């Protein structure tokens, strides 16, 4: 269980997260919608320990991310895929994937590489294992980014606007993989602007607005007239996003 309880985060005088509560059960796919600056990415960065909380508590399988000793365990259980890929440019695709399994999980190099190659093959990059990030397209880089996260066998996959830096064609490459993972039972917390896609793969959709979690509903209810759409901000957001 990934638990976010009453989380507050401020940058100077700006409150970015204001008492957010969210629970993700194993096997669930939860999408986070919201306009830019609503605190979606910050929430992900709080969960993986990149930002310190100013209030509240986040636990990943009961490991508290605010406690330095438990953060390492919590991080082993969650894998992050970044908006801008954040690959290591001096390492090949395969090395990007195997670094953490070898160094953190202490897997043998051979085992980690076998698994890395299998992951790359599963996202259609079987022949690009020895390529450096600079030799790959954006969509290919993000697929490597997904493999890098999956190689840690995370219980929770955190996806932070993973298609925002990609053109539509590359976006669909990446979304296809995520759809496969979702139907395969991978637990995902999915920050996105791809509303239609979120609707297809999510069990639940939550809506963040100015650091407050306005709506948290099962996907069907979220998009129903009497559910999420009853919230004027949600209706406004959805109609605007669909027009674009």
């Amino acid at each position, binding site marked *: 269980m990934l638990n976010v309880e009453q989380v507050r985060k401020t940058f100077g005088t700006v409150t970015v997260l204001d008492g957010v509560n969210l629970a993700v059960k194993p096997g669930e796919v939860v999408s986070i919608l919201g306009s830019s600056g609503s605190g979606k990415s910050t929430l992900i960065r709080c969960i993986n320990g990149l930002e310190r909380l100013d209030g509240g508590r986040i636990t990943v399988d009961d490991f508290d991310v605010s406690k330095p000793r438990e953060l390492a365990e919590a991080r082993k259980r969650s894998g992050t895929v970044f908006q801008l890929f*954040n690959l290591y440019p*001096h390492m090949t695709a395969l090395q990007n994937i195997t670094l953490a399994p070898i160094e953190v999980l202490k897997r043998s190099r051979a085992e980690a590489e076998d698994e890395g190659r299998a992951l790359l093959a599963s996202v259609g990059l079987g022949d690009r294992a020895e390529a450096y990030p600079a*030799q790959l397209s954006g969509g290919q880089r993000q697929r490597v980014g997904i493999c890098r996260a999956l190689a840690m066998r995370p219980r929770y996959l955190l996806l932070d606007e993973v298609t925002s830096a990609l053109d539509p064609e590359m976006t669909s490459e990446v979304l296809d993989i995520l759809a496969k993972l979702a139907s395969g039972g991978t637990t995902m917390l999915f920050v996105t602007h791809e509303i239609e896609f979120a609707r297809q793969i999510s069990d639940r959709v939550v809506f963040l607005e100015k650091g407050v979690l306005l709506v948290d509903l099962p996907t069907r209810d979220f998009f129903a007239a009497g559910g999420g759409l009853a919230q004027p901000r949600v209706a406004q957001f959805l109609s605007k996003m669909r027009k674009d």
Partner: protein
Amino acid sequence: MRYTEFTPYDLVLLAQGLGVTVALFLGTSLIGLAVGTLWGIVRYYRVPGLTQIITFVAELLKNSPVLVQLFLVFFGFPAFFHLDLGPVGAAVITLSANTAAFVYVIAVSAIESIGRDQIEAARVFGLSRWQVLRHVIAPQAAAFSIGPLTALLVNQLQVTSLISVIGVMDLSKIGATLNLRTLKPFVVWSVVGLLYYLAAKLVATLGARIERRLRAHTAFRGL
């Protein structure tokens, strides 16, 4: 009676001087690289207190003439610590410290040149600060800094000539000695200058070769 002709033995003297210069250069460069890199790592770990001290010392070393530092060590150590280092000891300490200060500056900027996003990614996947330094930062920082380091070492090779003033029998001191005896400054200093030039060229060539190897993975970046 004064013997002003060149003799074959002068070549031996020149070779000896060159040997002293190269040995001091290599020794102080290695110490300087090790110390400067260590200082850079201390800063990376943000060791409280120590980082400020190192930055202060590096500032002093960078912003004062090597010659002044040389005199302070050569005359200061015996006077204040009752420690007679001799000319070679004073030269080793001064040149090593001076090189370390500049290596520190290069190391700091090299570490800071690595994108925050990659470091965050590595941290999120559970790598410790040390593992991040070793696997993510160091290889890229090395490629980044090899150019400035080569330039620094070529310069430090020339700077070694200053140690002749405290009596180290390096290439410059041999040059001065030969010059006084033969009174043929243009011949003597041309030969000495050529030897420095060749040594510096060798350093630059080696640096360029290492740089090519370290940057192999970025060769296609322009594509």
